[in-house]
């Protein structure tokens, strides 16, 4: 019993896994999986965590200091798409439509979750913009309340970097994450981005 409940408690720590599902997963591991499968599974967890590195430039997942995208000479260094986390990056990469580079913030501003600007990689983004190669930064945070707040915040903080700032147009309906959008929606959102300064002058 102890073995089963202990394992279930570990699954229960994962997002979206409630106690019932955790127990089902634990039961599956102990009674249905072969020892070999369990070893592969456990190794993927420990190796994954041990070898995980983030890119020193864009903070995406990397094997060494730099990620595959930052190392790729065919990716345009002049355009940076700012996303909240790696899942949003993967959703955009899946479309194959974006040829620029990324900046992974590490979250979205949220006073409710006690995520302030100091928790996000905003200073690092400013440094990249100031280095001079970047023409355009696209604010690719999702159109939720937190995503909008973060975009407004960034617009203000990046204004003096001398770079064109645009915002993806995902419009309403809101509440979704880029992760759940289909390829067409993501592509359209990037292609239909709007110049934030132009929008401000009108407003």
């Amino acid at each position, binding site marked *: 019993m102890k073995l089963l409940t202990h394992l279930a408690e570990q699954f229960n720590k994962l997002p979206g896994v409630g106690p019932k599902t955790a127990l089902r997963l634990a039961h599956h591991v102990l009674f249905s999986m072969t020892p070999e499968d369990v070893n592969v599974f456990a190794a993927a967890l420990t190796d994954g965590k041990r070898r995980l590195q983030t890119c020193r430039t864009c903070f995406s997942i990397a094997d060494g200091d730099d990620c595959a995208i930052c190392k790729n000479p065919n990716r345009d260094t002049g355009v940076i798409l700012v996303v909240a986390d790696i899942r949003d990056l993967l959703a955009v990469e899946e479309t194959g439509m974006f040829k620029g580079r990324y900046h992974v913030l590490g979250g979205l*501003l949220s*006073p*409710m979750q006690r995520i302030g600007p100091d928790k996000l990689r905003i200073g690092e983004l400013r440094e990249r913009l100031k280095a001079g190669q970047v023409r355009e930064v696209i604010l690719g945070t999702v159109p939720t*309340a937190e995503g909008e*707040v973060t975009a*407004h*915040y960034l617009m203000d*903080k990046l204004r003096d970097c001398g770079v064109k700032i645009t915002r993806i147009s995902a419009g*309403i309906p*809101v509440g979704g994450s880029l992760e759940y959008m289909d390829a067409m929606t993501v592509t359209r959102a990037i292609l239909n981005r709007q110049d934030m300064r132009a929008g401000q002058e009108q407003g």
Partner: protein
Amino acid sequence: MSFVRLSLENFRRFPKAQFSFAETGLTLILGPNGAGKSTILETIYLLCMGRTPRDVRFSSLVHRGSTTAYFRVEAERPSGPGRSVAYLNGSAVVYHEGDQTVRRSDLIGKPPVILFSADEMRIVAGEPALRRRMTDRILSQERPEYLARLKRYTRAVEERNALLRDDMPPDPGSWMALDETLAADGSEILSARRGFLRDVSADLPDTLKSLGSPHLAERIRIEPAETIRGEYLNALIDARPQDRGAGHTTVGPHRDDIRFWDQTLPAAETVSQGETRILSLALKLIESRRLAAVSQPILLCDDLFSELDGVRRDAVTAFLAAYPGQVLLTSCLALPDPLLAAVRLTLTLE
């Protein structure tokens, strides 16, 4: 759109029950007080709006004698996606359309519902939330993007309130970003509400006349309450010291209201009980006409006739008897003959 069959399991006073409705026209639900007539209307409302009319906790809907904290309700459509299902899962309700799980926001307005109940008759003099809810309910059923924007706005207000309540002084950049987000969605919401109010004002006189109240049509005006003066973003910035003191956001659509004027006086102070009902009823008729432009709403009438006198009974009878969509009407009174003549199906509860 309509529902032809309703199954309840462990819901309110029903351990298990099934009811059938006429596909269009009038289904009469009879029975003494406490027999569960309103529960039937409440269930349809829940399946179409993702909440109950009085916003009760979902867990309180479970049948009292039940040993499990679970209920399930299911309504069958004559066509389209088949059935709508709602069941309790923990403290939340899960919704299905056909075989698919759907979000609450995907449910709303498909089909639209309109509830005629005693609660709804307090719209003129009741608390501001009642009037905001009327506007939001209608606009949300008409336009999914209004609902989406309202949800995002509500969430942004919660975020701003969390910032206001922090022990540390709010970070100026975050505060400005929050105010800009609130102002962007908030001004869209306010302008949609203003447009709605203009339409309602234009429809009101004729509707009141059709209810036999030409004198009210002359007197009553509806206007937005001036909750925001000047430009919205500036109003938010101006309110900062007071908001920080209060620990919540004091200006914006979530504090918005509608004013009913009786010539130069607030109508809440001048109109009689009977006149209040006529006004509420007129607003309901306008609501049903508006939503019919999207999809014919289901009318849920909870003991409506006990609220009405002679002239109004005739007007409402004529409206309901001629209504092209589905009407579910509960009553414990004797009903007017012309209405009884229009009844397609009668359910009697014990």
